[in-house]
């Protein structure tokens, strides 16, 4: 392996990188050893591809502890992200979508076959998963490789409760972590996203570079696969920004839903996608579950947000919510079908712009918390296999309720008790 670690000060002295086979963008907070370990993993990549690793911030000299004999002929260059970004905007640090777009632009510029975004840390600490995520792009012509993290009872709640079941129900493919954020993307798919963003003005017309990957690939019949990458270390919850988080995640999903309505209205059922690697199970957490605060927020929502919810939800659902809010915190349990219908009604209200979209999605937070409470209490201390079964049961409920969505979507003005 040739490893070029280029300090920022001396970058100009090195010949500029003109092309590559793969580009890896590191967005995760990896220290020097972390980057070195990741590069070591990439060094053993079969087929001796030329890999460019983009790292945020200045590149620290010689962090890589691999010897050429370990790595065959793989050429690996670690460069500062901003040095290769065709449109440096300074927004890289601010959002994952800006980083994604930048990574795609670099991939296009270097005419690479694909790229990989590394945005998470894994519990195992071994960097092999990055290579596993990129391999299907090269050897099996997959256009999108998504991670499949080992499920854990109280983690990735937004994914388990909305993203996975909704995308599975809409597009008919069982993609367990459709929003990554660690993904492998082919050049074709990256170019498609970039082209869409260049042709549309900023606003709802533009696609989210991460959230739209799965819908875009499936709508274009691009092969998608998932790779078992182990257990992900999730960032801690910032309670003050939870509603913003919900809005940021769901807005692009609902926008894509609107764009691809003709496709998903024809789709029935769902199929698994090709998977690589071995599923791993993680030991159940021993965290103390305190749901009082979340139940209180839900009860407050039922009391104070009724006016807003009544514009979105039909009377029968409002009645159910009212009944739930009267229960003691220990008794609150939201049925799967009710939760699926709530998501569908919010998606419809988002499409119809019943109220300001930001308000709409933020007002969903108390309902989401009620769901999280029910789900968390059910799975407290559960093994991975049980968690997975529970998530599958929820996804089946979404599929069972799909006729409700189709009917509401087609005839939103029809009386709905």
């Amino acid at each position, binding site marked *: 392996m040739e490893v070029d670690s280029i300090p920022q000060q001396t970058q100009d002295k090195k010949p500029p990188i003109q092309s590559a086979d793969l580009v890896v963008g590191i967005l995760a907070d990896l220290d020097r050893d972390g980057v070195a370990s990741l590069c070591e993993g990439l060094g053993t990549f079969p087929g001796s591809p030329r890999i460019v690793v983009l790292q945020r911030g200045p590149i620290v000299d010689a962090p890589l502890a691999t010897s050429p004999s370990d790595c065959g002929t793989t050429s690996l260059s670690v460069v500062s992200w901003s040095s290769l970004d065709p449109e440096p905007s300074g927004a890289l640090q601010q959002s994952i979508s800006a980083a994604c777009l930048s990574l795609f632009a670099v991939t296009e510029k270097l005419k690479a076959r694909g790229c990989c975004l590394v945005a998470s840390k894994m519990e195992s600490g071994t960097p092999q998963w990055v290579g596993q995520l990129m391999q299907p792009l090269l050897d099996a012509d997959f256009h999108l490789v998504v991670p499949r993290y080992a499920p854990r009872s109280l983690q990735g709640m937004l994914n388990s409760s909305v993203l996975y079941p909704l995308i599975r129900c809409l597009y008919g493919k069982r993609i367990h972590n459709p929003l990554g954020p660690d993904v492998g993307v082919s050049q074709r798919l990256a170019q498609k996203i970039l082209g869409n963003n260049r042709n549309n003005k900023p606003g709802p017309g533009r696609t989210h570079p991460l959230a739209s990957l799965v819908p875009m690939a499936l709508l274009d019949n691009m092969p998608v696969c998932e790779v078992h990458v182990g257990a992900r270390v999730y960032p801690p919850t910032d309670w003050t920004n939870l509603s913003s988080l919900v809005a940021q995640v769901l807005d692009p999903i609902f926008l894509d839903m609107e764009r691809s309505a003709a496709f998903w209205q024809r789709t029935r059922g769902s199929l698994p996608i090709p998977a690589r690697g071995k599923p791993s199970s993680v030991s159940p957490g021993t965290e103390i579950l*305190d749901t009082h605060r979340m139940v209180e927020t839900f009860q407050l929502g039922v009391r104070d947000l009724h006016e807003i919810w009544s514009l979105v939800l039909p009377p029968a659902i409002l009645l159910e919510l009212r009944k739930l809010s009267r229960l003691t915190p220990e008794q609150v349990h939201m049925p799967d079908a009710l939760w699926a219908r709530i998501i569908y009604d919010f998606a419809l209200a988002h499409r119809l712009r019943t109220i300001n979209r930001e308000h709409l999605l933020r007002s969903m*937070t108390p309902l989401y918390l009620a769901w999280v409470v029910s789900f968390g209490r059910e799975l407290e201390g559960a093994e991975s296999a049980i968690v997975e079964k529970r998530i599958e049961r929820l996804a089946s409920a979404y599929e069972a309720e799909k006729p409700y969505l189709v009917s509401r979507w087609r005839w939103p003005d029809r009386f709905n008790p």
Partner: protein
Amino acid sequence: MWNQVKHALVDSTTRFLTELAGLLPGMVAVIVALLISVLFAWIIAMVVRRVLSGMQFDKRLSGWGFSSLSEGSPGMSPTLLISRTVASLVIITGLLIGIAAFDAESTSLFVRSVFAYIPNIIGAALVLLVGSVIARFLARSVLIGAVNMNLQHARLLSAGVKWLVTVLAVAMALEHLRIAPGIVELAFGILFGGIVLSLALAVGLGSKELVTKSLERDGKNVPSENFEEPFRHV
């Protein structure tokens, strides 16, 4: 003597009839202008009603947070309210055009002053409309934010914000209409200052400990809860 009386009577009758004849074209003009304006008003109101019904204005309006407007509208329909307002404006305009046709100096002056005042009315209406939109938007934002932050008095906060902005908008509109500007200014100052002062007192006295803790927490930049929440969302 009799001749003089007869002459005076004939003169006054002639003068009256002449003046009446002079007024007649003006009166006819008023009636014609009124009739035409009624016809126009009816057509315009019908068009407005159809356009608004086509875009489901009533439903959208309640979606934008103006549900209370429906309650104050004839037939619970803001569409009807707007179409009737437009029709009334057209009829008033027709009436003013008709009055101006008298060509009498006083009526002309009256019409001129009415027309000169119209920009103020439009400006005030715009200020009220924008103020109302901003008030409702902010009230909804505060309500949702407060509920999500688990604040018990979310509705009270939201109503406070709404009335604060509404009072400001009404004061600006009255100022624009030049209706007792001194009193409005004074009343607004007292009312606005009162609201802010009461809020400050409520926060300062009622939530003294909460604010202190919050400030200490911000200063030290420590997590908002002592115990770490086990849930991870994304």
